[in-house]
Structure formats: C-alpha cells, structure tokens
C-alpha cells in the first residue's frame, strides 16, 4: 500500500537534498506504471518489465534534469508540466500501443510474485501484514537503509548534501553541482520507476490512465514531513498509510465519507505540530523557494 508512495517520496527526498524541489513525482510514477506494463507486454518477463520501467522513467526524468538544470527553467514549472505531459503521453501510448482507452487489463498477464517470508508468515495477524508482498516491497526496505547509509555515511552522499545545503560554497570547492543534481534526479527517476512498477505490476497487474490518483503528491507531503531523510520519509509514509487504512475502515460508520476521507490529511497536518523545524526544514524551504 505505502510502497509506491514511499519509493516516490525517497526519490523526492534525494532531489530535495540536492537542492531540487521535484513536484513531478506524480508524473514520474505514472510513466513508471505504464512502462512497467509495456515492458511486461513486450518481454513477457516481470523482471525485465521492472528494469524497463526504471529505464523509461530515468529517461523521462532526464528531461526534467536537462530543462531545469541546463536550461535553468524553474523546476516547479517544469515539474507541473511534466505531470501533465506524463498523463497525456501515457494515455496516448495506451491507445497507440494497446489500442484501448482507459484501462489495459489482461487476465493472463503475470504480475510480480508475492513472496512469503518463512516463519514470519506464521505469526498471527502480523504475518499477514509483513509477509506475502511483492519483492519490490522488501527491496524498498533495503533501499531505505541503503539510502540512509549513502546520504550520511558515504562521500558521494556527503557531497550531495553539501550541494543542497549551499550550492555556491560547493561550487567554490570545485564540486560539480550539476553532476550531483543530475545524479539525484536520475536516481529519483529510478525510484519512481520502481514505484510505478509496484503500482501496476505489484499491487495490481494493469494500467489505467491517471492510476497514480494523487499518490505522487502524497509522496511529496511524506517527503517534506519526513524532512527529506530516508528514515523520516519512511515514517511519514507509514503514518499516512496507516491513517488511510483507518479511514477506509471508518467508511461503514455513520460519518459522511467525505470526512473519513479527510482523516489521513488532517492527521498528517496534526502530526506537523510534533515534527517541526528540526533545522533541516528551513533548508528545505530555501531550496524549495519559500525563503522564510
């Protein structure tokens, strides 16, 4: 459930740490979801399909990088346009390649397998939550840890943080800002590709136009709430996922649906009272343009 959001949020966090505010997550995930299905259709292998999705989204995010870094376009404008572009492009390709409108669904297409973890799956209740997911879900947990190590323990990660913290100073140290920002954007593309693949090959095995349904924006919120740290982002995504589950279960009660659907957003807002300004936030705002 939270995996696509978390993956996209991690990508966004990486960009934010490099000083790029990436609002194109929604579009990137959508492209990932489509190319996952396309890859599966072309190669017949889910594994290759995931790779294909990752590569396609990286190409797409290269466009983001080129226009916002090389052509110095405003990253937010580019991000918003790319969201529109992704929607148009995937819908068009759906029609051009699969000759369907709306949804591509093939009962015989094989999605990502579900892996059961031995022992864990036998734990009552918890086993059902922790086990029986697609490999990408487990990969995501690994990615969170790797990203954490990468950012805070390696040299490349350290320099990436430097670029985001103070671009001019980094440049004066001879650190190529562009290279790091490109790297972050490409990595974000790869993560969004995985997010899309998990959406269209893991959670379901189909593609519907606009199937991201705002998940990319939730990822944006999760990334900001998690202060662009991998662990924080994971926490924020889990919080959101949990509240979403709560909200679904409240639907049957007498509260109007519109209010139960508000719950995840309101709770996230309230959680901001507890996780505020830990120093990094100010930096995040600087890079995202709100110079407070």
């Amino acid at each position, binding site marked *: 459930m939270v995996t696509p959001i978390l993956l996209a949020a991690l990508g966004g966090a990486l960009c934010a740490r490099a000083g790029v505010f990436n609002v194109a997550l929604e579009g990137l995930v959508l492209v990932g979801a489509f190319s996952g299905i396309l890859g599966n259709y072309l190669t017949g292998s889910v594994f290759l399909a995931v790779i294909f999705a990752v590569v396609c989204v990286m190409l797409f995010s290269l466009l983001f990088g080129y226009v916002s870094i090389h052509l110095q376009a405003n990253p937010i404008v580019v991000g918003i346009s790319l969201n529109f572009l992704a929607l148009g492009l995937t819908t068009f390709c759906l029609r051009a390649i699969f000759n369907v409108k709306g949804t591509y669904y093939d009962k015989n297409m094989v999605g990502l397998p579900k892996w059961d973890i031995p022992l864990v799956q036998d734990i009552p209740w918890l086993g059902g939550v922790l086990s029986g997911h697609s490999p990408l879900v487990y990969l995501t947990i690994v990615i969170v840890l790797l990203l954490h190590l990468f950012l805070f*323990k*390696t*040299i490349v990660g*350290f320099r990436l943080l*430097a670029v985001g913290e103070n671009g001019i100073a*980094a*440049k*004066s*140290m*001879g650190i190529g800002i562009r290279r790091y920002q490109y790297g972050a954007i490409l990595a974000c593309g790869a993560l969004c590709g995985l997010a899309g693949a998990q959406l269209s090959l893991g959670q379901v095995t189909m593609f519907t136009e606009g199937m991201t349904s705002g998940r990319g924006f939730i990822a944006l919120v999760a990334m900001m709430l998690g202060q662009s740290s991998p662990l924080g982002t994971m926490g924020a995504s889990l919080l959101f996922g949990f509240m979403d589950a709560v909200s679904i279960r409240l639907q049957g009660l007498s509260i109007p649906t519109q209010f139960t659907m508000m719950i995840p957003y309101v709770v996230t807002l309230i959680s901001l009272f507890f996780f505020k300004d830990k120093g990094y936030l100010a930096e995040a705002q600087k890079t995202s343009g709100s110079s407070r």
Partner: protein
Amino acid sequence: MLLQMEQITKTYGELTANKAVDFTLREGEVHAIVGENGAGKTTLMRILYGMEQPTSGAIRIRGKEASFGSPRDAITSGIGMVHQHFMLFSSFTVAENVVIGAEPVKGAWFDRRKAVERVNELSRTYGIPVEPERKAGECSLGAQQRVEILKVLHQGAEIIVLDEPTAVLTPLEVKELLAAIRRLAGQGKSIILITHKLHEVMEVADRITVLRGGQVTGVLEKAETNVEELSRLMVGRELAELNKSRPMPGEASLRVDKLLVRGDNGKPVVDEVSFRVAQGEIVGIAGVSGNGQSELIQSLCGLRRADQGTVALNGRDVTNKLPGVIREAGLAHIPEDRYQWGTAKDRTLVENGLMGHQSKFSRSGVLQKKRIHQAVSDWVQKFGVKTSSVQEKAQNLSGGNLQKLIVARELAQETPFLIAAEPTRGVDIGAMEFIHKQLLDKRTEGGAILLVSSELSEVMKLSDRILVMYEGKIAGELDGHEATEEAISLLMAGGKSKHE
C-alpha cells in the same frame, strides 16, 4: 616567478572592473593587494580562482600558461581561496567543512573520525586552532575564518588567496591570523592578502600591489614604502587628520537599565547592563566578539527580546517594542552584518535605500518615487558609492560600496540617536575617513551615537567614552580621550584572554 597574471581585463557590461592588470607572485612571499572599494581586487582574485573568466589576459603558473574554467581547475593547480564572504556549510561540522572535496575514506565510507584527526593535525602544524566537531554555523566569525584557511590548506594549496580576512576579526584574532600567515609563508606557502588595513600590510607583507579604478597604480617592496605612500597611491590624494573636539554632552538620549538578555541556552548573554548615551556624544563599545555586543544591539533595536530591564529612548520607554516603533522613537541603525540585516541583495539600490524611510517618502501609503530616486542618487554621489546606476542590484556592488550606501541611508534618517555597529567594516581608508567625519559631524549637531566596533583604533578615535564588554557585562568605562590601547585590551580580556 610562481604566478603571473598578465594584462587581465574584466568588464561587466559598461563597467570595467579590471583594466590591463599585471600581477606577479613569488614563491614563499606574502603579497598584499590594496585599493579602494570597487577597485577590482576581488574580481582579480575571482579570475585567478576560476570563478570568473577574464575578458582578456593570461595567467601563468611557473611560466606555463594556465586557464581556469572553474574553481576545480584552480584547486588542482594549487590555488586556494578564502572568500570575502564565507563559503561554509553551516549545518556541517568544522571537520566536514575542512575536508570536503578531498575526504578521507575507509572502504566505501566517509571516515569522519579520520577527518577530525586530520583537521587536528593541520591545526597543530600551522598553529590554527579550531574545534573540529562543532557545527560551522555555531562558530564565531574568527573561528569560521580559520576553518576557511584550514580548508584551503587541506586542499594542498600552494597559493593561498585571502580576501579581506581580517575585516570581521577582533584585534586579537587579527594578531593570531597575521602570525599564522607569516608561519605559512615561512613553510613555503605563497599568500595573496587583500586588506584595507595598511598597518596589517606593513606588518606581514613582502610586496604590495595597489589598484585604483581597476588599474595597477604601483607595485612596491614593503621595505621601500610606507603607509602614507600607499594611501596616496590608493586614494590619489593625501588623507586629512581628523580633529575631534571636546564633547558637549546634553541630555541622555538613550538610557539602558539593568538590561538582561538570555541566549538560546538560557544563560544571560547580556547581563544586567546599564549605561546612558547623551546628545552630542559618541559612546564606544569595545570587546571581543561574542561577548554580547550583538545581542545588546539587537535588543536595543527591538530585533531580540530582552528578558529583564528597561530601555528608554528620547524619553520614551521602548523596552521590547517592535523595531518600527523604536525607529519611530528616534533610532537609526547601521547593522553589523550588511548582508544579513542591512540589505536585500537581489533588489536595487533605490529599494535598499528606501528601507526605514517608507513613511517619510510616502503620502497616505503611496510612495513618492521621484523623491526616493533623488535621495538615493544624492547619497550615492555624496558618499562616492561606485555603481553604474541606482537601479543596480545591491549584490553587484563591492562590499565596501554597499556599506557606504547603508551608512548614508541610516545617517539620512536624521534621528537623534544612532547605533553604528562596525560602520567601516570592509570600507577603504578614504571612505573610512569620510564615514568617520560624518559620524563626528552628527555628534557636533547634537546627535547621540552608540558605536560598536571590534576595531580598537576606531573606537579610540571616535569615542568620547568607551565601555568595554566582557561576558555580557560592562567590564569598565574609560574616557575616550585618554584611554590607551593597553587599558582597553586589559578590560577586554577580563584579566585573561578568552581565546586561549
């Protein structure tokens, strides 16, 4: 010859910042560059460091032509630069700041422990003390300066460019820095030092290049010149001696009683301070930076909450009032940090000049743009601010010229009381003389001035009374006309030096 810069010319639009400049550096020498604000010193060094490309001209290192497309190239050629405005990552530790770009590794990992060790080692070798595990943003300006130098040394620079390194330092820190510079030169490093303080030049430099209006007006051996000749070459005229008349203090304009301000950790940073500033007098505050001067000023201006005590300005209680209200009550303020408090960098000079004058230059909320434009143009002319137009963005002005604009703006408030914090920081000697004269004139007209400066000579030259701050308290008061440097230094040190 280690470094030759030949016929360097750099133009920005219609403005020529460097015009056919020749500059040479010998191995192991300390070479000072002096010149007025906007003479083109920083520009020349930015070209050397690959941050700007010269419009024409060539750079040779050990006779071989070099071209620097970026700082990276300059760094590989053994050039390091400490910028006029620091280039630090404030949320990183000192050690991280020093090693960035050439970090120690352990396998695939960034070895932070080794980084600390290396910094300690460098620090010992060159006698430059720092606290490697402190966040750079929390360090005093002096310490940040030292971090910058260590950073350059860590990169293995042979040629070290220091752009106005002493502008923000206290006298003690200056002394330590100059000693470190000599030590570095002694160990074979070659140093280019930009400064406005000619006595520093005479103290450490081997050779001196003087720039004026983008051109070289002299290259001199230290031994064969003197302060007078240098200032003549810089300014193009003789400097007059300032004459300070005896004060005729009137009524108290500012009364501060038992003012207490707590720092972020809850400890008092200004500790029950009481003093008066009367009309027609200049009161100087001296002290090692970090002893509460900044906090004192900020709480006087309403930019920081005072926890106890009262501040009265021209008979009104202004304790913890909003900055706007306090200005209304008759306060103008030359801030100590011109970029943080004093300007909006991406705005024009006119817009920067308007700040604090909004009500004067508007009628029922509508700005009178002609008058503002005229006023700012007048200031630019009167203070000799070098700029192509008053519509220039503030960030394109050299540091000193921007400072002149701020001083002009605040003097033009014509308030009975003025806080002048580091009013001549980064300003050339000609302009400094001019600003000093303006402050004295204001005093003669009956203005009350609180001067806060880490430049002892400035405090001594201008003040009628000198208060020395130490650890948030006023450690003593001296008569400005009789105080000696020794007496002040003793109070500043509180009996023992703070920097040991």
